[in-house]
């Protein structure tokens, strides 16, 4: 219990406050933004980002980066949609499972490149980002899969309503809980932190860097697999450009959430709040009546300021600690 409190004391609290400030500010310009129904809508809209950002979190934790997430989402989403198109009788659960496996395999290829090919993660995933996107075009022959070719049950997959929340939100919750447990209480989870904190020290105590790289990229890929199925079923469209540029969104969610871009520090609750922060901006921009020409600018300024405030608070805390020590 104590450790949870300690963790929350760090960046998450500041970020949660920032989220509230942002939401209230938007509400002033667009009344009704902070309403029960709309909050549900925003969380639903951000669920995909949360899932993929958690995968990205593990990679960044080791000091790496996964630039191929958008392309894995596109490919697994296209595969799942095409399977649904050509085998409409196949239960959706199987389609989802295949989507996850496709993502897992693509992620594992990234892992192989990094672990055994000794390619730096940024280069390996920069390459596979194009390759997987290219695969998507080859697979689909440039065609889209749209509502007419999808089954009702596939399109209903992210919807549902259990205790007021959609299947999409539930899957994000379930994955978050699972991954928090994995990162905190399992040996492999701790090994990821160890590699990120100090590679040499971790190696000396017998942590296999190869194994860790395989694990993190496979997790990231599998989560992208789920995201791809959810993305295409939610928008009832599998297009070749699905999730282009999404990788930067996931990195932003991690960094906002207090994950050290150089690796070693950060936690999933922070990533979730970071993703929600971006989700609020995404959903606020269309309703706040700013000229579309300013929207990108505003988005960038808000994200940067949030990050700035966040690190300032961290620094202050460090100084306080140092002062106490010198007394």
């Amino acid at each position, binding site marked *: 219990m104590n450790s949870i409190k300690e963790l929350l004391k760090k960046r998450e609290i500041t970020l949660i406050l920032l989220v509230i400030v942002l939401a209230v500010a938007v509400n002033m310009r*667009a009344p*009704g933004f902070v309403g029960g129904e709309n909050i549900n809508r925003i969380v639903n809209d951000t669920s995909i980002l949360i899932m993929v950002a958690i995968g990205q979190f593990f990679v960044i934790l080791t000091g790496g980066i996964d630039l191929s997430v958008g392309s894995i989402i596109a490919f697994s989403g296209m595969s799942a949609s095409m399977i649904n198109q050509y085998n409409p009788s196949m239960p959706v659960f199987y389609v989802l499972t295949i989507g996850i496996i496709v993502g897992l395999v693509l992620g594992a290829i990234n892992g192989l490149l990094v672990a055994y090919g000794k390619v730096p993660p940024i280069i390996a995933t920069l390459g596979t980002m194009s390759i997987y996107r290219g695969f998507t075009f080859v697979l689909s022959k440039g065609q889209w899969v749209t*509502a*007419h070719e999808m089954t009702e049950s596939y399109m209903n997959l992210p919807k549902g309503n259990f205790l007021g929340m959609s299947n999409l939100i539930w899957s994000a919750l379930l994955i978050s809980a699972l991954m928090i447990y994995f990162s905190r209480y399992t040996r492999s989870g701790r090994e990821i932190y160890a590699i990120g904190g100090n590679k040499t020290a971790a190696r000396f105590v017998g942590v296999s860097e190869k194994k860790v790289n395989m694990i993190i990229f496979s997790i990231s890929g599998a989560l992208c697999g789920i995201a791809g199925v959810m993305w295409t079923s939610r928008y009832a469209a599998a297009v070749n450009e699905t999730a*282009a540029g999404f990788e930067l969104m996931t990195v932003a969610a991690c960094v906002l959430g207090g994950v050290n871009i150089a690796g070693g520090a950060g936690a999933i609750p922070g990533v979730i709040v970071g993703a929600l922060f971006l989700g609020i901006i*995404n959903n606020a921009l*269309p309703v706040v009546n700013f000229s*579309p020409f300013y929207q990108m600018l505003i988005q960038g300024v808000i994200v940067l300021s949030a990050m700035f405030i966040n690190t300032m608070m961290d620094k202050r805390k460090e100084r306080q600690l140092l002062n106490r020590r010198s007394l």
Partner: protein
Amino acid sequence: MKKLLTVLLALTLVGTMFAGGQQEDKGDQPLKIVLLVKSLGNGFFEAVADGGVEAAAELGNVESIYMGPSSATAEGQIDIIETLIAQRVDGIAISANDRDALIPVTKKAMAAGIQVISFDSGIAAGGRTIDLIPSVSELIGRQQVQLIAELTDYKGQVAVLSATSQATNQNAWIEWMYEEIKDPKYKDMELVEVVYGDDAADKSYREAVGLMQKYPNLSGIISPTTVGVLAASKAIEDENMKGKVQITGLGLPSEMQHYVENGTCGQMALWNPVDLGYTSTMILEALITEKVAGNEGDMIKVGRMGDVKVGTDGVTVMGTPFVFNKENIATYAAMF
């Protein structure tokens, strides 16, 4: 593969040379008009071919021939044009894989007395007499407003969901939408805002939801982009606004079939490949039979499409985009 293709082409060439010799004696053969497309096996161009056949049937004196390379390359099209010159066809309408690369061979064809025009994807001036383009900004923009007005009974607030804010074509169409809505018949309508979905499904969806939140009385959305119109239709369904908020735009029938058939999107438009093939064939027939010379300002009669006027540099506009609705969407969805 390529070798095989060349051999086949050479064989047809030899074959047609003999055939050509026989034909000349007869004299009263139908005009051979070729629709040369970017590549074979593409639904869009199959529909172009259907249009050519339709025009040929209407004209009576025309044989419509559909050709194209197996992959979309300029080289493949050059080979075919060389063959067509040898076959002495009467006219070729080309959807070009390269704006400039085909010019030498099409010049050669024109020197041999073959009429050459381009459509859909043009050849630069000098390499053809007429370049048929599907539509122009003014016609597209004005029609979009007419379509949404018909759906909303000429009442209420409408908004535009565009692609990116820098898309030149989109912006030109939107300018004309503002122009069209000034007409008194739209006095009860207001174009409230233009938003940009960047041709991404997620952003377009969010922007559409945002529009419905911002304007509770919104009666319609115009989305002149394929991703936008698709995402906005989905957003309208998810927000349970079907029937309250109308949607129209420019979309591919195969992609929009679901929403057009279930009534979310009452009608939408796009240039129609059947009309392109039809018009190209009609124009070529008029040029071959010397009904017109194809100079700037010439009017050409194009059957059911009405008259088209040859513009500067031979650029000729076909007309307003074709409207797809519940009744005809299934037919066209099978084509493109």
